[in-house]
């Protein structure tokens, strides 16, 4: 393996895999899904919805299985169970004395367990490992189309309502006081989260998708004080780490989802240490311009 690395140039390292159809497809889908999740992760980190992202991404599991069994698109099942889990979290919290984080943990593990049970009970050709860990290298054509559609929908919603959603994350009180319906925005963000979880499932799988929905936003947050720039940085870091992750996975034969998320985490660590204004080793004199 070390000989292999030594014998090829950086150029070959990037170009060689492109001769395979499956690699071109995997790289394209990973970059796209990475970008979409990266954009959404800005809202998740700013709204403080990391735990909610974890919950929803796990809770879509039974929805995916049921949709598969009924021959419906993934996203419909995911959407129903994703939003349903949040409604359930709200209901249990309101009707009992249990604290919110406990309720979130309770509901999403319950949903996830239901998904596991359903997979083993419903005789179908669902590959559990595919759902849990993702498999961008083995993605089928129909899955590509499906992922493209979901990604397009998520990006469209986030672009159309970006100002309103930003305002909702920043100051929901003001949003309401100027007549904006924040209830709709709340559920819109949740729906988009459920959809993005399904898209992310294709590349890194259900277990790690929450990383795609948090890490790029957190990285970008350390690098800028501008919302638009934060969006851009999150999309870039997420897309680039997805692509690099796929390459590394190809060359060293390691698990793709893990390798994508690991690259993302390393990029975060670099920002954490060396971000100009908010890093640990920040330069001493940074003036606000």
């Amino acid at each position, binding site marked *: 393996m070390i000989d292999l690395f030594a014998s090829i140039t950086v150029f070959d390292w990037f170009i060689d895999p492109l001769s395979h159809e499956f690699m071109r497809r995997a790289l394209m889908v990973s970059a796209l899904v990475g970008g979409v999740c990266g954009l959404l992760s800005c809202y998740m980190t700013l709204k403080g919805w990391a735990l909610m992202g974890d919950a929803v991404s796990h809770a879509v599991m039974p929805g995916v299985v049921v949709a598969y069994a009924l021959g419906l698109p993934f996203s419909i099942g995911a959407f129903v169970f994703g939003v349903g889990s949040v409604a359930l979290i709200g209901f249990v919290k309101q009707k009992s004395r249990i604290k919110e984080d406990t309720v979130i943990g309770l509901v999403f593990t319950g949903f996830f367990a239901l998904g596991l049970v359903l997979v083993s009970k419903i005789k179908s050709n669902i590959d559990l490992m595919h759902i849990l860990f993702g498999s961008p290298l083995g993605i089928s054509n129909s899955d590509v189309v499906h992922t493209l559609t979901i990604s397009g929908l998520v990006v469209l919603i986030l672009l159309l309502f970006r100002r309103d959603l930003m305002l909702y994350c*920043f*100051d929901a009180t003001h*949003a309401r*006081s*100027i*007549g904006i319906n924040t209830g709709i925005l709340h559920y819109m963000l949740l729906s988009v989260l459920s959809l993005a979880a399904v898209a992310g499932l294709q590349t890194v799988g259900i277990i790690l998708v929450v990383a795609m929905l948090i890490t790029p936003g957190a990285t970008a947050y350390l690098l800028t004080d*501008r*919302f638009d*720039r934060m969006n851009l940085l999150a999309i870039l870091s997420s897309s680039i780490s997805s692509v690099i992750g796929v390459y590394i996975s190809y060359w060293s034969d390691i698990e793709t989802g893990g390798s994508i998320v690991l690259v993302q985490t390393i990029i975060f660590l670099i920002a954490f240490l060396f971000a100009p204004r908010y890093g640990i080793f920040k330069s001493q004199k940074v003036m606000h311009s």
Partner: protein
Amino acid sequence: MMNQINAKFPSDAFRIEADQVCVDYNGTVALYDASLQLRAGVICGLVGMNGAGKSTFFKALMGFVRPSRGFIRINGLEVFTAQRAQAVAYVPQNEGIDCSFPVSVWDVVMMGRYGSMNFLRIPRESDKQAVKHALERVELLDLRSRPIGALSGGQRKRAFLARAIAQRASVLLLDEPFSGVDVRTEKLMSELFLQFRNEGRTILISTHDLSHVRDFCDLVVLINKTVLAYGETSEIFTPENLNMTFGGLSPDVLFGQTPADEFTK
């Protein structure tokens, strides 16, 4: 701007009208029989202890809680209709804001214009002018591209006031506007409030800082779960009324805001 705010608004009509408003949260009464009528061009202080129902009253005025009894009208309209017409601006306490949010001062003030824009919220030239004008009035134009988190407490307060100005709201609800602000901001804000009054806006200030109320509120409302007393500041600010509002304790002792000169007297 004055014309815009007073346009089609008769001087004898009420900006804020609350009639026997009751609010309860799951059976716990937070406010009962609260009535209040404010005309255009008045500054009114809303005074009471923590938990006396000040924030509940604000929430009711903004339509966040629905009164279980009674009604509220803003400019003669239902609360929600008035909000859609951009009539109500809320200026939050500093503590209620995520200061590390990646937005600039300009962005924050522009948020005051969102309600008047189309749904993509693309600023027109008139919106930019309104934001620029608002920033000039609070003397923050030079700092417009700073992140909101890089401002001092007083500057941040002014930024949110500028947002209300940019919104061109006729009713301003201010939550503890003078807490944690510098002398310059305090002076600027007092001047602005008087200008707002002359422009025909109605300002309701929720506070437990009595010295500011005494200085420039025309009217004062004392509340403790209900409106205890309400009228001209000079008539309402009696020791008996204040005792009643603050449950028999002297407010100055309660809130540690005794001015130094009262010690030396």
